[in-house]
């Protein structure tokens, strides 16, 4: 190494070394008369940064189904899904996010060429234990404006859905949003290629 050539500014020992004291430790008692730094959850709320990397939102109209998000995902949590809304098939596949795997790095948001995939600062994955367990392993993100509205009305950074119904036979998914709205769609298939149009309804990759 070139250690000798470089000038080191070495701290004198007198600055580093300390002397043991019997009295000084008691000076910590002054903190008894100060305000605590802790906050009382849930009576007081934590402050979340504006651009906190939380859940995803997706503008379905902007999404072109390029699968960049699926390719960059370090945890392989994103899979492209072909969807049918109100009997009409979406022209492009949309990402489905598995929150059991997601690391919330949001590289998928960085690479999205059209800006369809975004994130919001909501981050609490747990449910309130009132309804059935929320299945977050097949989550097709909802529209950012809807998510934002729900977040602003409740302001508790929770997931916007109370209950997800998934019919394994018909592959129909029903999102019961927290404000009572119901959002229905049907999963036609997975993968980048469009599902084969067969009468039996077999998918290219079942389950």
């Amino acid at each position: 190494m070139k250690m000798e050539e470089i000038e080191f500014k070495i701290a004198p020992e007198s600055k580093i070394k300390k002397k043991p004291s019997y009295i000084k430790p008691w000076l910590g008692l002054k903190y008894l008369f100060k305000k605590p730094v802790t906050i009382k959850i849930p009576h007081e709320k934590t402050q979340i940064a504006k651009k906190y990397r939380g859940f995803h939102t997706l503008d379905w109209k902007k999404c072109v189904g390029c699968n960049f998000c699926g390719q960059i995902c370090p945890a392989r949590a994103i899979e492209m899904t072909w969807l049918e809304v109100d009997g009409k098939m979406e022209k492009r596949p949309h990402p489905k996010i598995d929150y059991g795997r997601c690391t919330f790095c949001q590289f998928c948001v960085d690479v999205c060429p059209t800006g369809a995939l975004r994130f919001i600062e909501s981050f609490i994955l747990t449910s309130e234990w009132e309804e059935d367990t929320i299945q977050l392993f097949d989550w097709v993100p909802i529209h950012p404006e809807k998510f934002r509205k729900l977040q602003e009305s409740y302001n508790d950074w929770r997931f916007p859905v109370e209950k997800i119904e998934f019919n394994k036979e018909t592959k129909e998914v029903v999102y019961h949003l927290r404000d009572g709205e119901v959002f229905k769609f049907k999963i036609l298939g997975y993968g980048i290629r469009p599902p084969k149009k067969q009468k039996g309804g077999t998918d290219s990759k079942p389950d």
Partner: protein
Amino acid sequence: MVAQSELIKEARENGMDLLPLDKDTYELFFGPQHMATENFSIILKMDGHRVVEAIANPGFLHRGFEKLAEFRPWHTNVALLLRVCVPESDVPETIYSMAVDEIIGWEVPERAQWIRTTVLEMARVSSYLFWIMGLSFKLGVYTAGQWAAAYRERLMALFEQLTGARVYHIYTIPGGVRRDIPSDRWLHQLKDTVEYIKSKLPDFDHLVFENYITFKRMEGIGVMNKKFALSEGVTGPNLRATGVPYDVRRADPYLLYPELDFEVPVLNEGDALARALIRRFELEQDLYILEQLLDMGPPSGPYQVSDPRLKNLPRFKVPAGDAFSHVESTKGDFGAYVVSDGKNKPYRVQIRGPSIAHGIRVLEHLLVGSRIADVPVILMSLDNCPPDIDR
């Protein structure tokens, strides 16, 4: 005795290795549930309350980062490799990004360099506060530990605003950083935080570093001499406590460190107390560096290199080549060696962590002859990072 030797023989045939114990010694499993060891365990062979032999037993956090990194696109690896060191996750990000920058030949913009340096120093301060928390818990001075956790919270809030996450920032990427500084308000907040923590340092001194209990517990424990430290590859504060003035920020300067002014603390004792005092002094120096950086102010300009290839991140290819870069972390010399063969994934990523040197051989050596009550103190004075040992 015949039966015992037969048992040992049988155990060896089945792939188990039993330690031969005599009647005076007993085996003690220290960790991984023990608070001091953090996902790490030591098998101690005890004679009364003295340690006769210590065997480090790592592997609880093995996730195979280096192999996993070979299957992921270049930028994505940042989200993986930062898990190598949890308390200061910016260090693995930065070394990986610096190595990739060197392979591509990118000139990182000045603003990105300023942000990277600031983030590294913030990570150092927060890591030292975390260490103070651990040390004071092990010494029994719980109050100071709670303070350190509270002050670290302020830095975490700043990280949250800057990077969008509290612990795993995933912020430094090849070619710069992911986001710009949110606002001037953030800089003011950082300045306030630095001043606040600086004003609280005397309190830490009173309670931890000038406390007679600390001196009684730590003086003359776990003594490491210069020759042993150099032969075992000890770096960082642990090496400086043995009298070697080696600091990567000075020996092999990177980012903005050549322009910054700070002192390298060196002590000759090599015991646990010397290591603790060196860390205490470095915390002060890091706050001083942050003050200098804030006085300097972030240079204007872009925070990322502009390259059209960056628009297609999954298929972003790095030309063939290799590079090594290292930075000074609070644990020691942290380095990454990255090899590219021209594809969209690295050919090999090798991480040179400091804790693997401190946590296995050095720890085993220092623990011999110590009392059982000193084991957590020695462990904490070395400041290991178990995920770095297992990797």
